[in-house]
């Protein structure tokens, strides 16, 4: 019997396949059933040492929809933390005010440190470039919901695969489900070696390429990421790359993609996905963002022990 009661949610590495499926199952129940008062009287402390409006609002909405309360701060500038109070002192103090902590921090490993110190469950809402597990859960949920399964899909990851933590975590999670993975990026932004090795150790069929040509038509899902200009020393190089990794309706049709191909993106986007895609059956990125609510409801309700 799987239970997430009092459990910390720090890294996708801490979850096995059964636990992921359990969480997706609770998420589905959260979407299909109207739970309203189950977190009444519970307090969530949202500690955002680094601002992230979308993630914070998504957690707040999930908590409030279930009648819970939210305290916290949106950035550390105005708090005593900026004056030198340590992370561990802050969480030790705040632990006394709340039932669950959601933490975002610019340093990698911050959420794990907090979880080691306090007794209330800690949910990692992003630690530097390391992990953002609730994003991975909602990505998985979106794929499962739109494709009907997570098993045996052909997934293309497109864009900045070197710094894109959402890609690293999602690839790791999909390895449980026999996915075939295509990593499509400019040479300087390829998937890091450590991750490629890990995936190969887990018997994932991996392919690397520099464009969607010849590959696009095989894929069930394309997961896009933003390529940031500061990753390139030469602006001309960046302009070239930007053109190659840009998706639009005509480009997809030119590639001969499957009719039921789905395009995902962790948002916000800049111009890597043309607006011509927005209304099409391919685009599921807004739905993906909306799925953050039932996923975060499911996590809050299970770690607080009100849902089994």
């Amino acid at each position: 019997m799987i239970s997430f009661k009092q459990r910390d949610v720090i890294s996708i590495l801490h979850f096995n396949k059964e636990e992921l499926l359990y969480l997706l199952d609770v998420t589905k129940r959260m979407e299909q059933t109207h739970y309203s008062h189950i977190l009444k009287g519970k307090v969530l402390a949202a500690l955002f040492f680094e601002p992230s409006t979308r993630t914070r609002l998504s957690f707040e909405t999930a908590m409030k929809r279930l009648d819970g309360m939210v305290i916290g701060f949106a950035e550390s500038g105005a708090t005593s933390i900026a004056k030198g109070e340590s992370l561990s002192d802050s969480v030790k103090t705040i632990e006394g005010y709340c039932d669950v902590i959601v933490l975002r921090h610019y340093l990698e490993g911050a959420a794990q440190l907090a979880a080691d110190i306090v007794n209330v469950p800690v949910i990692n809402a992003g630690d530097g470039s390391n992990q953002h597990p609730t994003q991975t859960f909602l990505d998985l949920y979106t794929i499962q919901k739109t494709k009907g399964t997570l098993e045996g899909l052909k997934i293309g990851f497109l864009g900045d695969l070197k710094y894109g933590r959402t890609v690293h975590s999602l690839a790791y999670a999909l390895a449980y489900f026999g996915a075939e993975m295509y990593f499509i990026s400019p040479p300087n932004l390829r998937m890091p070696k450590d991750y490629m090795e890990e995936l190969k150790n887990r018997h994932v069929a991996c392919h690397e390429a520099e464009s969607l040509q010849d590959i696009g038509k095989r894929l069930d899902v394309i997961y896009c990421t933003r390529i940031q200009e500061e990753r390139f020393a030469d602006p001309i190089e960046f302009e070239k790359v930007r053109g190659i990794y840009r998706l639009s309706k005509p480009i997809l049709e030119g590639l001969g993609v499957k009719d039921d191909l789905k395009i995902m993106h962790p948002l916000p986007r800049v111009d890597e996905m043309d607006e011509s895609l927005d209304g099409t059956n391919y685009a599921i990125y807004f739905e993906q963002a909306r799925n953050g609510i039932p996923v975060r409801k499911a996590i809050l309700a299970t770690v607080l022990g009100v849902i089994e």
Partner: protein
Amino acid sequence: MKQLDVSAIKDGSVIDHIDSKSTLKVADILNIKAEEDVVLVGMNLTSKYLGKKGIIKIGGKILDQKEVNKIALIAPNATVNIIKDYEVVKKFEVVVPEVIEGIVKCFNPNCISNYGNTKAKQHLINKNPIKLRCHYCERVMGANDIVLI
């Protein structure tokens, strides 16, 4: 070559087959500075297997498995002999512990363990070649990334 007379100790521990370059690091880990009995440190000695090896002899100190395991991180070929009355009474294999705390610095400058009073901590994920995963930032370190605190 004739052995020097000073090389034998009556009671204590002998750490042999240290990769020569790592000898002083091993000495550091064992905190020989604090020893009051006889301590001998040899470097660049001839070894059939390692080419050049280091050796450390600590009089009056009996290493335990935990101390031995720390050595394993930087001297995986080391052997440890416990001496009593000039006789070897116990031999240790060096084994890298599953969890390493407060010994290895995380190589990721953006890792929380490099700030404040957080004690660095890693999990052993592969023995040979050695691979450690940081408990906090999850980055994986190989032998070349290992820097002792």
